């Protein structure tokens, strides 16, 4: 088990990267705590798999260092890093039995026979695969195979971290939930540092203590699910997390007022003069619709009934503004939108402005 330090880490797949855009992974500096559960979340091509492969040692970064506890492992091969990895598609050794699969990493590390037997039977019990111990691994279902891939990591007592690369991709929806619960349980039991790559926000938010949101090769925010929801550090985070995502509207800022087109909205804080593109972000959950004359008039374009609540899609002088209203509430004929001012975030060039007072 280990604390993972990423030190000025960056990677480019080109031999001589010139500009920032040539980097698949832009420079990052972070310390990930021992025993933490981290999720790397982001759309396809954002660099999350690149980062994972650097941690596992399948890829040597172009710049920077990676440390497990105090040991620099940047140049070490995967087999010498003592990590375990679960891949997108289940990797099992077809010709071996379930038990042999689990024993494989131990046999390769020349662990004593009696200890192998003991650990394998423990693991079979933990993974609830005891009844299949002696059947060939190739006949199993996808979720059982993924359990075996995970088990090959867990049987080793020397693992620094367990890495997951979108491990639920090929799992049936009803099994996903079960497997995820199992993962949480194992994390509590073994307290391994776990890093989980996914593009599914539900998976990330339910699995991780801390979510690392990546966008275009950059880590845009690291935070707890609450932090990501309440204070997205980047408009992308606001848009990517939550369903529907955060409303982002271009605005003019004057101290504690924001001008949206011809309308003025009071803010909870006062901001200094800022240059660059200024945007106002608010989650649809904090936009209410009613007849209050203080609200800004909006045109409703669509209403989507999700069951427990309704999503109302509206236009505010040409800019999209979504609102979430309770199931029973009806949409007024000429609705006015009230924005909860304590929940408004201001963004300059897509990044959250924190200096308001």
């Amino acid at each position, binding site marked *: 088990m280990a604390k993972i330090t990423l030190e000025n880490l960056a990677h480019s797949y080109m031999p001589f990267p010139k500009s920032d855009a040539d980097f698949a992974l832009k420079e990052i500096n972070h310390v990930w705590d021992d025993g933490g559960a981290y999720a790397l979340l982001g759309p396809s091509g954002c660099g999350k798999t690149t980062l994972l492969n650097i941690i596992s040692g399948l890829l040597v970064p172009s710049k920077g260092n990676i440390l497990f506890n105090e040991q620099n492992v940047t140049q070490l091969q995967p087999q010498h890093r003592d990590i375990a990895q679960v*891949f997108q598609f289940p990797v099992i050794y077809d010709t071996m039995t379930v038990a042999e699969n689990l024993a*494989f*990493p131990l046999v390769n590390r020349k662990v004593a026979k009696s200890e192998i037997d003991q650990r394998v039977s423990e693991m079979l019990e933990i993974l609830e695969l005891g009844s299949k111990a002696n059947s060939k691994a190739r006949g199993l279902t996808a979720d059982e195979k993924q359990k075996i891939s995970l088990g090959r990591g867990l049987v080793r007592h020397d693992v620094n971290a367990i890495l997951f690369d979108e491990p639920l991709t090929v799992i049936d929806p009803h099994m996903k939930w079960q497997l995820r619960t199992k993962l949480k349980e194992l994390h509590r039991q073994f307290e391994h540092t776990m890093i989980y790559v996914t593009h599914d926000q539900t998976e990330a938010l339910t699995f991780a203590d801390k979510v690392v949101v990546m966008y275009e090769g950059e880590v845009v925010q690291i935070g707890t699910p609450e932090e990501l929801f309440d204070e997205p550090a980047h408009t992308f985070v606001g848009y990517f997390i939550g369903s529907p995502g955060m409303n982002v509207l271009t605005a003019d800022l004057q101290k504690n007022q924001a001008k949206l087109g011809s309308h003025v909205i009071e803010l909870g804080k006062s901001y200094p003069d800022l240059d660059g593109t200024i945007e106002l972000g608010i989650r649809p959950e904090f936009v209410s619709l009613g007849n209050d004359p203080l609200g800004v008039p909006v045109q409703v374009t669509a209403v989507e009934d999700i069951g427990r609540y309704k999503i109302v899609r509206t236009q505010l002088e040409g800019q999209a503004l979504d609102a979430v209203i309770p199931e029973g509430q009806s949409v007024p004929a000429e609705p006015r939108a009230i924005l909860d001012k304590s929940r408004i975030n201001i963004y300059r060039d897509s990044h959250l402005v924190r200096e308001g007072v």
Partner: protein
Amino acid sequence: MEKTFNNKAWFLVLPVFFLVAISAIIPLMTVVNYSVQDTFGNNQFFWAGTEWFREVLHSSRFYDALLKNLAFSAIILLIQIPLGISIALTMPKKGIWVPVCLVLMALPLLIPWNVVGTIWQVFGRADIGLLGYTLANLGIDYNYANNAVDAWITIIVMDVWHWTSLVVLLSYAGLVSIPEAYYQAARIDGASRWKVFRYIQLPKMNRVLLIAVLLRFMDSFMVYTEPFVLTGGGPGNSTTFLSIDLVKMAIGQFDLGPAAAMSIIYFLIVLLVSWAFYTVMTNYDADAPEKGVQD
């Protein structure tokens, strides 16, 4: 749910049935016809029953040739399969050398059997052939026309040169289809090179190797052209394989009955051994049938 049966589909299979009938079943039936009858010319035939079969199965000449065939096929498989796999393992997986290697490997496959035979026949001659001349000058007594061992070595080398590529190409196709994650997982699990081969590459190549083994067995068991071109079955009877013997019997001696019976036995042996290979290779490593319902 009720299953609907539509037997009209059988009509669509009819053209294929006719083609197969003309190309395979009818000629085969002619052979069957000859094998159970005797003739003294004039297109007059008499029922002979199983006499020809008994004659073939009791002749030492048949067993001599069969033994040679089995030995030849065994040697060919033992050389070509491991050699083919090892070459495939060393071939590059990406880059400009891939097409170069593939074309080089495919070249021998494009050359007709009799040309291969002729090439090596000339190549091995001590007077005008590069190989034979060189060996003679090195003081090695090599003469495929006189020495049975030399003749065998020549035919085997010829076949290895001609057909190993097929095994290489099939194995290579199997190897490149293995997802990268398997190798990565093996590295993380600390597997040695041998274990990667034994537990990842070999099982993933199982299917293509089955095809390679079947094709190489059938082809080598039916070897005809190469020994025929090289020595015509000699020296003595040392390279008289079943096929060569069969042609001698059917066309040389015009013993149609025994030749037909021998053809059928020959055919059944190829079929039987191929079936055995298929069964063994598809069931190897398979699970015992599972009890209960699979979810």
